């Protein structure tokens, strides 16, 4: 078989090689350089792959190794192939998009189907362990140790000395283990032990939070630190019972509620620590049907829409007006005006947003001082909305001005002269000739400006942070856009609700996607008109 297969396959391979020789009809400087380039590319791909795979192999993350191998194979195939593949040009963009845009979106969608958030971050096992560990209370007469905080391989270790028996133990997250050959210092604390790095008091203090939450599990309880030099053995007051799938402290019993991911007592109260469970479409429907959420959602959506439309309309109007004012053959000083008007575009937006916030300050803000008034600009809903609009108009109109100026210069003077000959007034010439041509040039910009301002997080968050908030409801402010509202849901002081926030961000996403598709179609239509 192999013998007959060999000769038969050889002419077949010759066919592509003749095509390859065909390419040599355009030898150019290409062929040797191309071969060299291919060799370099191969070396680069293999090098990166080896570098990327090394830590994964040593950490035994075989899924990761598989992904690296797959991507490498794909890259080698694409770039070593002599054919002219579109993938050669598409691969870098595709990989980056998949890793940092597609995967996060899909992940967000999967989170939207869970109750993930504060108190619902981990698995049920982790929740039980956390409940038991945090319920450890000291009992009279329990064992006490002298504590030395140390580390091994970067993870925290408690070196515990029992002064009564002059014994030393190493306590890790896995349990307690006796160590020999430790040296003791004054006060009976361990000062050195083989294999462990003792932290200085300053280093230990810097990891104070880690130290105080560290628990060394022992039978029926745990050893916890009390300060940085003492530790005690305490008993867990809450215990989990597999038989009834419940947590009990002897008097009250909290039963596991696997649908909502928490332990609930008969009187309806729950333990703060729960776990992550799938909740199906609950978050997605809650955003639409839960009256507590959907009234906010709708109100914010309407303001969001008004905000984006108003910003686009006002920036375009002011930009075009300024361009028209300066567009006159007898106008003097045009260059200076232009340079000054475009200045806001050069300033860093994030910083200027903060400057505007402080200019609106009631007590020592520039706006109040210049106008001689005492208005709490960012404190009442109406003035706050006016303020964020004003700020965004300031940031956005110079660009509109720039584009409108350019577009005005490309409008052929003949059109206007012809209209004038036909007896059109100045206003008619503007309305019938100049404005339509200007709008044609501005259309793509108006669409992208709308899409941008619909999600203008900085423009609202840095100025008002979504506020002012009604006194009875700190979750929705008067200037909140969907995106700042969602952000506060996910990371706000009310406690993180990633699941709900993810569901709402999916809606935001759908809205923006629809807008950008419509916008795209409109601008294409505009182009065909021209």
């Amino acid at each position: 078989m192999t013998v007959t297969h060999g000769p038969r396959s050889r002419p077949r391979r010759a066919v592509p090689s003749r095509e390859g020789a065909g390419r040599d009809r355009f030898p150019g400087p290409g062929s040797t350089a191309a071969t060299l380039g291919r060799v370099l590319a191969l070396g680069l791909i293999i090098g990166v792959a080896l570098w990327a795979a090394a830590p994964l192999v040593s950490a035994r993350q075989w899924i990761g190794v598989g992904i690296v191998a797959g991507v490498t194979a794909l890259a080698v195939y694409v770039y070593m192939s002599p054919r002219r593949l579109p993938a050669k040009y598409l691969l870098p963009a595709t990989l980056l998009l998949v890793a940092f845009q597609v995967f996060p979106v899909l992940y967000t969608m999967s989170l939207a189907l869970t109750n993930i958030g504060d108190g619902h971050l981990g698995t049920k096992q982790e929740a039980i362990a956390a409940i038991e560990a945090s319920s450890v209370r000291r009992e009279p007469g329990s064992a006490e140790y002298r504590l030395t905080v140390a580390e091994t391989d970067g993870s925290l270790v408690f070196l515990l000395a029992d002064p009564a028996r002059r014994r030393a133990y190493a306590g890790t997250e896995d349990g307690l283990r006796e160590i020999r050959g430790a040296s003791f210092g004054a006060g009976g604390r361990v000062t050195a032990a083989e294999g462990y790095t003792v932290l200085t008091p300053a280093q230990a203090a810097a990891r104070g939070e880690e130290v105080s939450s560290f628990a060394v599990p022992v039978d029926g309880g745990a050893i916890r630190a009390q300060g940085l030099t003492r530790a005690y053995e305490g008993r867990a007051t809450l215990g989990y019972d597999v038989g009834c799938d419940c947590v009990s402290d002897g008097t009250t019993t909290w039963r596991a509620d696997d649908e909502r991911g928490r332990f609930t007592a008969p009187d309806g109260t729950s333990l703060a620590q729960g776990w992550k469970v799938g909740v199906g479409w609950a978050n997605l429907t809650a955003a639409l049907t839960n009256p507590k959420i959907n009234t906010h959602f709708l109100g914010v959506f309407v303001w969001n829409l008004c905000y984006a439309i108003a910003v686009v309309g006002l920036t375009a109007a002011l930009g075009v007006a300024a361009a028209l004012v300066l567009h006159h053959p007898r106008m003097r000083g045009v260059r200076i005006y232009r340079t000054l008007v475009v200045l806001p575009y050069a300033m860093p937006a994030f910083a200027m947003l903060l400057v505007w916030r402080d200019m609106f300050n009631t007590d020592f803000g520039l706006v109040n001082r210049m106008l001689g008034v005492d208005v709490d600009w960012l404190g009442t809903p109406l003035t706050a909305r006016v303020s964020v609009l004003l700020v965004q108009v300031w940031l956005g109109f110079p660009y509109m001005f720039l584009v409108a100026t350019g577009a005005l210069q490309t409008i052929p003077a003949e059109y206007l002269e012809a209209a004038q000959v036909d007896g059109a007034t100045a206003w008619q010439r503007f309305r019938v000739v100049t404005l339509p041509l200007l709008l044609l040039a501005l259309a793509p910009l108006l669409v992208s400006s709308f899409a941008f301002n619909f999600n203008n997080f900085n423009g609202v968050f840095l100025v008002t942070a979504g506020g002012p908030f009604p006194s009875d409801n700190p979750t929705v402010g008067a200037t909140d856009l969907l995106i700042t509202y969602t952000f506060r849901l996910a990371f706000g002081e009310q406690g993180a609700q990633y699941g709900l926030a993810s569901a709402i961000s999916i809606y935001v996403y759908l809205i923006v996607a629809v807008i950008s598709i419509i916008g795209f179609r409109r601008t294409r239509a505009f182009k065909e008109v021209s």
Partner: protein
Amino acid sequence: MRGMVVRHAAAIAVTAFAVLPIVFVLSAALDPIGTLNSATLVPRGAGLGNAVKLFTTTPFWTWYRNSVVVSALTAVLSVAVAALAAYAFSRFRFAGRRAGLASLLVIQAFPQFLAIVPLYVIFSTISDNWPEFGLNSVWGVVLLYIGGQVGVNTWLIKGFFDSIPRELDDAMLIDGCSHTQAFRRVVLPLAAPVLAISGLLVFIATINEFLIASVFLTGDDARTLAVGLFGLLADQRNANFGMFAVGTLLTAIPTVAVFQFLQRYIVHGLTAGAVKG
């Protein structure tokens, strides 16, 4: 003549609106007291006290370097990656081309920072394995920004490539060039305006980006200007205002420099679609 007076009055009003906040920043930067409630439109004195204080009490130049490095790398690399993809979409006809373009449009509509929890998970994993690209690393954030920008830029650049006649490529091929050479020597130089404008827009968007940077670049050495200056006001909003104003003015320099550098290519690219925020 009355028309000209009205025009000048309107022009002066618009210019005043545009310039006043900047004058305020300039004055606050020079003001010797350097607090928000002392800042006025006309400074009571001029001094470099705020600047000296900014340079000595904060790692301002480290922030500055980080911002410029992140923004420049993101601008150059994302335009490069996007130009390659745009070339494939513009000049090749392959299965899935239309679907690819449509999905690019849909994917890039998702605001990247809404997915900040998943992104954090991704970066924790990266930090564990390749700390060079993980949290508090300039390179990691650059990759993240490119991933978020590449969709928009591909569309923008592809639109421009479409307007370059294919006959030019074909002429190069007949003259014995490879496709890569046709791309490099004909299409890319002709597309300079759109490459310049996309680069500028990415640069501006990146140097202004606050949210992702505030989550991923928290180490003292890794902060960008947006994160660092924001922290300055968060600590002592009133007292640090003069320092903040100095920082704001200095932050404008790279943007203006990039704009000046790219200006000669930009004239045609301006209308290609851009916003600022």
